């Protein structure tokens, strides 16, 4: 009987350790389960829509108008229109790069 008395606290300690271990196992398992559910949500991030160019190219003077260009007026005006058309071309080229980047993401 005197022998049993010291054993009692040790058994109690042992029982507590087992309970704590089981509790840790349960908590860890719950955390793993929660991570499994959270991961797909992050994968579901929508693709980024590119800023598509919708600006219409600037109208260029008709080359078939038959109106001869004068140095002082019509040529300069035509060259301005060419510049605007080229800017629109550049915009489309930039849009292509943007689209491709989006497609590759």
């Amino acid at each position, binding site marked *: 009987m005197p022998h049993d008395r010291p054993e009692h606290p*040790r058994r109690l300690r042992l029982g507590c350790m087992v309970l704590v271990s089981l509790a840790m196992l349960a908590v860890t398992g719950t955390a793993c389960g929660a991570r499994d559910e959270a991961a797909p949500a992050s994968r579901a991030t929508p693709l980024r829509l590119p800023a598509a160019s919708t600006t219409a190219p600037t109208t260029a003077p008709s080359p*078939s108008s038959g109106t001869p260009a004068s140095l002082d007026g019509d040529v300069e005006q035509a060259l301005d229109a060419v510049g605007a*058309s*080229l800017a629109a071309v550049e915009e489309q*080229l930039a849009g292509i790069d943007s689209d491709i980047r989006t497609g590759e993401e």
Partner: protein
Amino acid sequence: MTFTSRTRTLALGAFVACFTVAAVFSALPSTAQEPPGRRDPSAALSQIKERAAVAVDLRLDAISEMETAVGDSNVVTEEHRSVLLDMLASTAAGLTSLGETIAADTEISEALAHSAKIVTDYRVFVLLLPQVRLVLASDGVERAAAVLGDAATALEAASTAAREQGRDTTEADAAIARLRENLEAAKVLVEGLASEVLALDPSGWPDNEAARDQARDDVRDAASALREARGAAHEAARALHAAPAAA
């Protein structure tokens, strides 16, 4: 006696701790690699459908914006406008139908296979939209080249008139020559480009990626040549204004 009991207790505690750690680490890989559908197939199917719907909508929105751009463009030829609008409408109809198919799928494997087709059957961002833009850009280059051609003709006439007046047009003629040279280079670069680009098909991906990139480089080079030509035209006009009388 006490030492023995303590040792036993410690050994048992260590065993429980090791068991706990081993259980946790052995559980980690299996839960991390486990497909979402393994635990809840209906939730996984819903998730696949949701992602597919997002992907389809993104493409439909981009196509819609491009349809507006093509419709509003005043440099694209009417023939190309019609072809481009047909391409865009056809793709939009196909994607819409595919989206409905995915929404009705009841098996994860079906939904996954159909979802993959959103990309593989249409290649909206890497091919279709670049195709449309390349045709718009190519037509823009041709339109600008035509305007510059008229300007070159006018400058040549002015130079001839100046020479007949006894003025020195050497500098102006050199600028006009550069204008013509760059103009022709730009025309050659985009000649037949629109037809080649329109012939590219999603089924040919990724083999036709090089053709897309080549077309983009050609349009870029053509635009660069036209900028040079435009600068030469300005220079020719200034030189004609300033052309000195011949000695």
